[in-house]
């Protein structure tokens, strides 16, 4: 199961500057484990106490995984997984 993962600027030190990398897995956690195997150090930036870091948002095809099972959310072949830091967004 290959998915395309978008890496935010702040984490590209782990991917040699790559904006977008390929990874495999059928859940978000499996994708993160695979990322860790290929780009060491990423997992501890994303996961804390077996949950997503408070200031990290992960989206599968633009849907926030926190509302789809969190780290156990399923991922299908060809999906896009986007990692973004939490910032103040939206209409204010």
């Amino acid at each position, binding site marked *: 199961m290959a998915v395309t993962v978008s890496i935010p600027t702040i984490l590209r030190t782990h991917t040699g500057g790559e904006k977008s990398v390929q990874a495999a897995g059928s859940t978000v956690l499996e994708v993160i484990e695979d990322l860790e195997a290929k780009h060491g150090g990423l997992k501890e930036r994303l996961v804390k106490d077996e949950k997503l870091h408070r200031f990290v948002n992960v989206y599968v095809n633009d849907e926030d995984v926190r509302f789809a099972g969190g780290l156990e959310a399923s991922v299908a072949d060809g999906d896009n997984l986007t990692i973004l*830091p939490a910032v103040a*967004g939206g209409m204010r």
Partner: protein
Amino acid sequence: MARYDSLLDALGDTPLIGLPNLSPAEGVRLWAKLEDRNPTGSIKDRPALKMIEDAEAEGRLRPGSTILEPTSGNTGISLAMAAKLKGYGLVCVMPENTSDERRQLLQAYGARIVFSPAAGGSNQAVAQAKELAKLNPDWVMLYQYGNPSNIAAHYTGTGPEILRDLPSVTHFVAGLGTTGTLVGVGRYLREQKPDVQIIAAEPRYGELVYGLRNLDEGFVPELYDEEVLTGRYSVGSYDALRRTRQLLETEGIFAGISTGAIVHAALAAADKSVRAGKEADVVFIVADAGWKYLSTGAYSGTLDEAAQRLDGQLWA
């Protein structure tokens, strides 16, 4: 009755408009709540006026007080109008990469603007406003990201209006900024209809805006309550623009760009109902009209060109 004693009294009770052309199926209907029909033309009039009224009642705001607020525009414009009518000063801390119209409107109402750097977006505006508050202890920061009056405005206003006008509502979709609209309306509707879906549309900006030095500098508004939400979509500028134009083309509604992001999430939710063979009444928020974004080029040229022009701007 459509007669009011002053502009401030004309707040709320906005129209809920059926969208026969945009709705994906006969049993899955979309409805737009036109929040641009508020005194200064955005949904932010609701929290802004409520925050001021509550601060007055608590004695925090007194005649001649100066209000301080981090705002990318609409809340500032609402506060500026109310401050003008009520005799307060207003200082807005605003990222420099917001549209020129917002700036001009704030200045027309007599607000003072302190610009925060484009890099860092609203995070930086919030941090800078907190610094200014420390340096000027006599200023009153209403702080929309953490002020319960923001939620209360929607819990007592927007939410009950929706249920009154559409008792069959199944989904509510709005933009995620301070989170006040979603949390306030969401809590009210959930109490009345436990199965209601509450869905957030969050703008996804160009990379500049996410230029934090480390993840611990991230920001989640104090008002945010994840328990209220059932879904959350991240919507990029291309999709937001595409849907903004689609809303105008199909239903004649000239909305701002953040509404396009909300429409995108509303259509995704509606599509899920269609695929599940379920009936649905999906209400979404039109946060403001498009006037303030004309200078961004959002409504002319190709979508790619327009998305390019928006890159690096805070469009919502």
